[in-house]
């Protein structure tokens, strides 16, 4: 990640250090590409924010930009966005907490205990990762209805509360915890629950944090499943509510755009606050087959 050649532990000096001797034309070209990519990455969302800040009636091509929060006030009041905002926070935090807790519980025996059928369990969990949610929405919906959970926040949480992916990720982390720690604790009389709580959880904390972040991003953005199981407006999550705004305010889409910005801001803040966790290595680990 960082500039490499200079601080080599081996002390071997290198005659070529690509980081420093780039020709000017190459450097200039790279800055141009960097500028273009940055414009591509933040341009669309930035434009959305600009338009959402313009009160209805002003032309979007108007030179003068007089930002106003009018659209936001209107959409929160007329679009009833406060409840969906609360629902989204509840669903997102519950899904992330459940994913971390359940994966951490299931991963411990899979990483650290011997029991009959362990390999079969591992194989079955791997198999669940091969079945996309999109394929099984009909029976998932049916189960939710039969459990009496249809059109409740629990319906948006419970079926998404654990994933084979999360269990595997935490299992890999727990495999790397030194056995000596576990044995020392056992000699001191600690049972499985205490070993799990005092050794396994703290030592796999970075992975658990990563899983929590992935879960938060996925849950905050989720549209397909909440659209299927949430019917009443007071149960909507924010993406479902914003989706409805597109129809309800089709004559003044700036209100829908303002709603979208309200869905964007919290997750961007959460991301910027936790960005030190987003190292490239965790993504490689996350998609490794």
């Amino acid at each position, binding site marked *: 990640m960082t500039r490499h050649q200079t601080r080599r532990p081996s002390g071997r000096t290198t005659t070529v250090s690509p980081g420093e001797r780039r020709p000017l034309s190459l450097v200039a070209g790279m800055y141009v590409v960097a500028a273009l990519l940055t414009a591509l990455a933040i341009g669309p969302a930035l434009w959305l924010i600009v338009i959402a800040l313009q009160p209805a009636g002003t032309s979007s091509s108007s030179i003068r930009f007089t930002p106003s929060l009018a659209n936001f006030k209107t959409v929160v009041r007329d679009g009833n966005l406060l409840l969906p905002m609360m629902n989204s926070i509840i669903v997102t935090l519950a899904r992330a907490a459940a994913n971390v807790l359940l994966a951490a519980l299931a991963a411990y025996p899979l990483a650290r205990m011997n029991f009959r059928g362990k390999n079969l369990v591992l194989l079955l969990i791997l198999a669940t990762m091969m079945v996309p949610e999109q394929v099984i929405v009909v029976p998932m919906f049916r189960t939710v209805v039969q459990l009496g959970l249809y059109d409740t926040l629990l319906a948006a949480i419970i079926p998404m509360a654990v994933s*084979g992916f999360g269990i595997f990720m935490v299992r890999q982390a727990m495999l790397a915890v030194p056995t000596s720690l576990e044995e020392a604790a056992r000699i001191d009389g600690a049972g499985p629950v205490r070993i799990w709580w005092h050794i396994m959880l703290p030592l796999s904390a970075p992975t658990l944090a990563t899983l929590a972040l992935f879960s938060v991003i996925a849950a905050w953005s989720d*549209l397909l499943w909440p659209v299927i199981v949430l019917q009443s407006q007071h149960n909507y999550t924010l993406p479902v509510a914003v989706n409805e705004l597109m129809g309800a305010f089709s004559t003044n889409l700036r209100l829908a755009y303002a709603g979208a910005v309200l869905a964007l801001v919290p997750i961007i803040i959460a991301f910027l606050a936790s960005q030190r966790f987003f190292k490239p290595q965790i993504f490689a680990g996350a998609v490794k087959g």
Partner: protein
Amino acid sequence: MTSAAARPARTHAWWTPHAFLLPAAILLVSFVGLAFFQVIYFSFTRYTAFTGPEWIGLDNYQRLLGSGVFWKCLLNSALYLLVTPALIVLSLAAALLVQASLRGTSWLRLALFLPVVTPTIVAALAWRLLLSRDGVANAALGVVAAGPVNWLTHEPWTLLSPMLVTLWKGFGFYMMIFLAGLIAVPRELIEAARIDGASRLRVLWHVTLPSLWPVVTLVAIVSSISALKVFDELFVTVKGVPIEQQTAVPFVYATAFEVGDFGLASAAGIVLFVIILALSVVNLRLSARRSAAGAPA
């Protein structure tokens, strides 16, 4: 795997592992395992919002095969796979640029990752705004005396527009995977090639990219699978266009929850599952070969 390190003697009750596994197992069995067998069963039944399920054999599959709309959606799903090469090029370029760590660009990785955390509904609305009839895209086309294009209402643009959203939202994610791969490219190889007088371009082409090849195949398959599963982008970006202008998952959704034909939707889901499974199997094969070769990722 380091499982050899984890072989403690049994010091727990026989039911301890099961107790730890139980909560996750209940949920995975009822919402994935059971659901998987149910969807297979439903695909052989007449099952609507009002009646059934009632066994009808292969009828749903025959209806699917004879349905022009379903074939069109599958074709569109196949066309949607064209986001994969675009994603690879864009994310690889982004990764190389971030890796180069130009002066004053330490924020670049962060900025390019922002679309990944952007909720899909927000991304889709932002692109609807850009692509609307009097939006920025058509204004830009107007400057070069082209267009305007009906990005959101007419084929083939109704497929291209959600693909742009998928591309925009995805490239930062795959950039991270390429960055992890780039870190693992042996520095010595690159230095040796440079000392031997190879130009930067030749080093990139003959050293860096070949070392990254396993990562490229990984990204190709992972992004293809997620392209086949795409829903949110279409649901919002091209809201309201006929289902035959959309892809497989919107077909499943509309058949189940708008038409109310759960049996037919289940059969369509099974067809999609088989296609995705084939790709996953290829991925596992390649992944086994990657770890056998000791390659990164």
